[in-house]
């Protein structure tokens, strides 16, 4: 590799890393507890699923219309926004708000038991884990924060790619896994940075890319609603949004939806006027019926007044990519061993970020050419390092 090529990639690696390192470290540190949020919820007694006995709320139990009345009785004057089902327990959640298009901050989430038909109470809010999740998702800045972290993710992937390019000249005289201990502290740090970087590369790439996709979740849902959903429900385009007082039966709607997409399990219902539906439909989102497609949701659009099916169609490829990105980013799809692997690789990533920062902080003064020598020779003896 020519010196000028190494220099160009080095500068890309240096700047993409320097700009994003602080935020990536924050994402790693907040990501660690988030990996284990289920276990932490159980420990702190916030795992309601474990204490409820009965069939999963996605399968059956008390009528949905009845459940909705129970929830709405807690929030007089509000309208329903979402109803979500559990695949494992009778836990059913209902989200309400002052208006069909209420923003997230004005929504109230309630837990109900679909086997007994009773309310459990409002979902706990404001805990440590919620703080961590908010920080990790958007730095408490809403959509701009999400997009900003998406850009940091793109810089992370840039740093990974440029790091792999620089790995080539550095390692040409060294065996894989070389960790020299008889050299300067800098060479030791450099070897560790290279080894852990290349070892965790696959995982870092996948978590980085899926993190970027997740950062664009809101615009992607908007895009689906304004594009394909509008097309599916074109016949309603000119009508005024439905008044919540004239919403029809949820159970009838669910029956129509299940007839349209048989053999699948419902995950949630988007009520009219929200981000996940039109002004006139219950959007019933079903999971795929196989493990691989379980994360891919397909909506059935049911006229809220007549309970008749309008259309059911798979979401566009980019939205499907978003849905597959969630498990691949969260690491919550393969039991506790996978979570432990996620944690180990997060720790490795933290060390790659930190050692990279140290290499920059303790660089030999001024001369950029010295760093190029270092990479070009694999920090060979006799070379300035």
């Amino acid at each position, binding site marked *: 590799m020519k010196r000028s090529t190494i220099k160009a990639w080095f500068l890309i690696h240096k700047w993409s890393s320097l700009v994003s390192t602080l935020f990536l470290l924050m994402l790693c540190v907040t990501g660690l507890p988030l990996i284990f949020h289920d276990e932490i919820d159980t420990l702190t007694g916030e795992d309601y699923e474990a204490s409820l006995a009965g069939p999963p709320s996605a399968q059956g139990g008390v009528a949905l219309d009845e459940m909705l009345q129970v929830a709405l009785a807690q929030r007089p004057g509000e309208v329903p926004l979402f109803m979500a089902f559990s695949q494992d327990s009778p836990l059913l959640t209902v989200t309400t708000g002052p208006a069909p298009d209420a923003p997230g901050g004005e929504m109230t989430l309630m837990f109900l038991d679909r086997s007994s038909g009773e309310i459990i109470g409002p979902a706990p809010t404001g805990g440590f884990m919620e703080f961590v999740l908010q920080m990790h998702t958007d730095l408490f800045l809403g959509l701009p924060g999400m997009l900003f972290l998406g850009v940091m993710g793109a810089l992370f992937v840039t740093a990974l790619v440029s790091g792999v390019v620089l790995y080539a000249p550095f390692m040409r005289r060294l065996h894989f896994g070389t960790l020299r201990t008889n050299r300067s502290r800098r060479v030791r740090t450099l070897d560790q940075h290279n080894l852990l970087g290349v070892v965790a590369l*696959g995982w870092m790439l996948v978590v980085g890319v899926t993190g970027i996709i997740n950062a664009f979740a809101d615009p992607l849902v908007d895009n689906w609603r304004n594009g394909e959903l509008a097309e599916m429900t074109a016949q309603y385009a000119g009508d005024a949004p439905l008044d919540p007082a004239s919403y029809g039966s949820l159970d009838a709607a669910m029956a129509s939806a299940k007839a349209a997409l048989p053999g699948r399990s419902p995950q949630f219902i988007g009520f009219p006027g929200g981000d996940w539906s039109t002004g006139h439909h219950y959007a019933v989102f079903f999971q795929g019926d196989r493990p691989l497609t379980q994360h891919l949701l397909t909506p059935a659009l049911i006229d809220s007044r007549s309970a008749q099916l309008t259309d059911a169609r798979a979401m566009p490829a980019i939205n499907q990519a978003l849905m597959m990105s969630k498990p691949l980013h969260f690491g919550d799809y393969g039991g506790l061993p996978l979570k432990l692997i996620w944690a180990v690789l997060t720790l490795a990533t933290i060390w790659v970020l930190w050692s990279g920062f140290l290499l920059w902080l303790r660089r030999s003064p001024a001369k950029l050419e010295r760093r190029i020598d270092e990479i070009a020779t694999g920090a060979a003896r006799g070379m300035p390092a």
Partner: protein
Amino acid sequence: MIVERSARRQQRASIARVFAIPAVLLLASIAGLVLGLTGNGLPDALSWALLSVPILAGVFAFAKRR
């Protein structure tokens, strides 16, 4: 100096050799990540095994460092 240079040049491995092990680790990681999505039970166990490969490579390198 010239002799030392040519000797050093001879030791240089090809790009393919440099990236042989990293490529295996990359493929094992990605295969493990995707396989875990395909089901519970055996696919999950395979996913854990494949994702352990890069971790063990790192542990091994630290264990035998000199």
